[in-house]
């Protein structure tokens, strides 16, 4: 056998042994047991301490409130939404007490009017809706009731009411232009208020030369094919 063969083999052997040793040192334990990762890595993730106990835990002691909540309009709002993370309270119920928010600012996180919220979600204008009165003075937070009957139109149509309040029509009540059946307050979507259907309705004020300070037009000459509100938005503060 040529001399170089055993030498080469010795080199290869040393290299492969070194590779095996290096690999066993460098590749961490449990790497590749399940996939191309350290199987034990999930252990450190699992070891993370939870902060939110979960509403099931709350119900073990606060069953009555839980029942009340599940029967009311906050049935989907779990305890820790308002009371904060309560895992510490669960493990040490006497010494750690979760907070109960009293401020209007907390309730308005969800219930302040915001155009981006889904239609039908109960929303208020905090500046308009009993300012400075804590929400919980009127509403039981565990089973809040919506107001029985809206007092006036702005209860639901706040945006229009605010716009109208600074428009030239601020002194005109909603019901001057909209005939509103009482049933609308109970079934707002199926029974709707009316809108003016004739040009003469607007003409009662805007085609009377005797009313000074009010824009006047000639009803027969001014775009007679259209109803007034098809071009002019009556609640808008601008002049157009």
């Amino acid at each position, binding site marked *: 056998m040529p001399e170089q063969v055993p030498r080469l083999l010795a080199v290869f052997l040393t290299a*492969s042994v070194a590779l095996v040793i290096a690999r066993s040192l460098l590749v961490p334990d449990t790497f590749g047991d399940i996939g191309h990762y350290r199987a034990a890595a999930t252990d*450190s993730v699992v070891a993370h301490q939870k902060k939110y106990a979960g509403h099931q835990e709350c119900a073990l002691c606060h069953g009555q409130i839980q029942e009340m909540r599940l029967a009311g309009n906050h049935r989907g709002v779990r305890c820790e939404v308002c009371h904060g993370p309560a895992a510490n309270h669960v493990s040490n119920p006497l010494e750690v007490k979760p907070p109960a928010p009293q401020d209007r600012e907390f309730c308005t*996180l969800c219930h302040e009017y915001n155009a981006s*919220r889904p239609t039908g979600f109960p929303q208020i204008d905090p500046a308009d809706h009993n300012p400075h009165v804590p929400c919980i003075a009127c509403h039981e937070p565990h089973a809040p009731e919506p107001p029985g009957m809206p007092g006036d139109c702005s209860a639901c149509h706040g945006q229009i009411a605010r716009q109208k309040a600074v428009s030239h029509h601020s002194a005109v009540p909603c019901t001057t232009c909209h005939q509103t059946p009482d049933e609308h307050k109970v079934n707002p979507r199926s029974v709707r208020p009316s809108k003016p259907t004739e040009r003469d309705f607007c003409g009662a004020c805007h085609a009377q030369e005797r009313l000074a300070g009010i824009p006047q037009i000639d009803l027969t000459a001014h775009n007679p094919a259209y109803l007034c509100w098809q071009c002019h938005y009556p609640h808008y503060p601008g002049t157009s």
Partner: protein
Amino acid sequence: MSRESKITEQHERSDAVQQLDRRQFLNEMAAACGAATPLLCAFVRLPATQADAYEPTEHYYGMGVDPAKCIGCGRCAAACKIENDVPAEPHFVNTWVERYVIRAGGDVEVDSPNAGIEGFSPLENEQGVLKTFFVPKLCNHCDEAPCVQVCPVGATFMTQDGVVLVDDQYCIGCRYCIQACPYGARYLHPEEHVAAKCTFCYHRLVEGLVPACVEVCPTEARVFGELEGLPTPLNRFIRFNTIQVLKPHLNTKPKVFYANLDGEVR
């Protein structure tokens, strides 16, 4: 066959062994070493350990999100930061809420002030708004996750129950995965200098709890559950809604499913 002939055969065999020359012997030894290498490696390792009584192969998780129910209160984003000890500064978030404002001309505005944690102030200019809505976002736990593919050390991976996690003891902080994620769902932890992300609250899942964001969502806009098995709540959600995932053209196969999502949402 007689006893004698058996003995003769055995002798012949032992002769054959003795007749191996050195080259043959070394060749065979080298082959044996090669074959034994993986075996040796296997012996060095320790068996995998998992949380007691939790069997990851029996689960496969996903999430459903219904933007039509989201009220933009940001409780999910706030709870996630608390639950997972996410740094308090803005931009380090596992989940966040975006507000979309689509104007009549087709202009789209998207904002997410501090991930929505303090809620959203009312729109400044409501004139000309065609529609506006909130969309909660989080890691999509993609079945074909780009972040997993690019990790050079195998520190980010998908568990057997379908959750994409980061091995924070093994991550080298190279940020490849942050670049690779098309959803912007990852960040570099400012103190630990490793990649961090949504874990679906894996530590809660093994206890049979839902993720913190799902627990605190007051309108149940998030549905969490099993993707395997027809009658699961999540599969009912997927069945009874028109479902869209984010950036489907990237073939990442996200496991966060959005109901009736507007086409403007990316």
